[in-house]
């Protein structure tokens, strides 16, 4: 199984490695001082050199990402359950969700900083929650409501209650779409946390590390933090895929990327 996974990952790894080598070689020729764009080896060097600091910053940002994700997922799922259960909730809460999503959420970061304090992580968490909530809500409510008429009539013929229908039909039906939204949300959470950190929050975060190093023209260090942030996004993506495999055993043939 591990051999199979390695074999299926080989093309992507080859492409990535080839791209990095090309990047390195071209920059060696056209831009040897590495000022505008550093070479991969320089970025790696900086990552190793600043490892402790970047790891601590990643810890701070990771905390924002995870707590924001959990909050946003909970909000999205509860909202979707309400909307799928009660017509009145659908009529009231669905337009509200759309309206919330229409706000350019990142633009709220400076405002939230004013609310919660410039150095408080709460404003960053709030940004992540808002960003994560919408894709989770839209996909989950779609999954909860797109149940076939025959399935519902069968449950009706078993004299099943509304909650029993939700528990045994709607929720399992929503699982694949929920996990799709989780993959989207995990990347969004990293983006949201870092951009929010540009505006405030704790000073030992990846966002602040990037801002401060870029401001003093230390681009290689900034890139090293970008690499750390990307790694976090990729890890979260695969963790989501792992949860999906465990939670939807009937779809074992589903690829993690799929």
């Amino acid at each position, binding site marked *: 199984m591990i051999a199979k996974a390695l074999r299926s990952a080989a093309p992507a790894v080859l492409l990535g490695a080839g791209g990095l080598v090309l990047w390195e070689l071209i920059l060696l020729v056209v831009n040897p001082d590495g000022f505008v764009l550093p070479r991969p080896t320089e970025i790696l060097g900086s990552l190793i050199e600043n490892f402790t600091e970047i790891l601590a910053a990643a810890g701070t940002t990771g905390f924002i990402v995870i707590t924001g994700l959990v909050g946003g997922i909970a909000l999205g799922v509860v909202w979707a359950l309400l909307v799928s259960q009660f017509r009145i909730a659908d009529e009231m809460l669905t337009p509200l969700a759309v309206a919330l999503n229409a706000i350019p959420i990142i633009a709220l970061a400076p405002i939230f900083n004013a609310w919660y304090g410039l150095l408080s992580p709460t404003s960053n968490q709030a940004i992540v929650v808002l960003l994560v909530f919408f894709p989770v809500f839209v996909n989950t409510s779609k999954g909860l409501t797109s149940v*076939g008429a*025959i*399935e519902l*009539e*069968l449950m*009706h*013929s*078993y*004299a*099943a209650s509304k909650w*029993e229908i939700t528990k*045994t*039909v709607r929720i*399992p*039906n929503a*699982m694949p779409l929920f996990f799709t939204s989780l993959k989207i949300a995990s990347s969004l959470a990293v983006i949201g946390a870092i951009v929010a950190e540009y505006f405030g929050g704790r000073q030992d975060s990846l966002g602040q590390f990037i801002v401060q190093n870029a401001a003093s023209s230390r681009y290689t260090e900034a890139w090293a933090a970008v690499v750390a942030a990307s790694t976090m996004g990729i890890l979260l993506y695969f963790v989501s895929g792992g949860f999906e495999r465990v939670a*939807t055993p*009937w779809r074992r043939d589903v690829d993690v990327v799929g």
Partner: protein
Amino acid sequence: MTGHIQGSAAGGVAASAAVEISDLSKVFNHGKPNEVHALDGIGLSIETGSFVSLIGPSGCGKSTLLRLIGALTAPTDGTVLVNGKSADQARLDRDYGMAFQTSGLFGWRTVTQNIELPLQLMGWNKLDRKNRAAEMLELIKLPEFGDHYPHELSGGMQQRVAIGRALSFQPSLLLMDEPFGALDEMTREHMQTEVLDIWKKTGKTVVFVTHSIPEAVFLSNRVIVMSPRPGRIAADIEIDLGARTFDTRESQRFFELITQVREVLRFDEDSR
């Protein structure tokens, strides 16, 4: 009225009739420009333990009639009594097992879990559920497929599981709406034999909607021929084929009965 093979020794008329329909009408979009009289003035009594087919052209209301019996829709006028109760009460008492053209199996449940679903909703314990599911798998002749997921099964197998699930809680009525409509001809004939076998073993009352005249004649001891706009009963034909064997499909009487049903449908077509 024909087709009352079994006697009424069990009690009065109400006790021996599984379904008692009187003066039943169903109008869709009542009072609107697209108003449709799906059924008009239907009267029908279905004997307990009988196998009754509803047949007719598209739009004759045969599916609507089945749905009214199963309390999936409410009548505009008239009454449906099932085992002496209102159809909705019969539904709440779980008197119905249902199977449709598509199997309606839940893709996230294994075959066994699908069969166990109604039992789970009825609060059966794990062991009883498991035992009943095993019995059902024997009945539908898929004993080794319990742990498979529906998508791993052929269309005919999925329909058998759907029938097994419908019968798992031993409802007194089995309502089937073109359950073999999506199957190829060979699988279909095989499934017909299976369903007759299951009917003989379980003694359920079966109401079966179909488009196919041979299917209706082969399966039933009574065929209700319906005509459209508004849906009404055009003929009520008793089927006296005796025990079905492989030769039944090639027997003289089989063809005569098919012709008889076809004549009703044709006469009805010509008279409009």
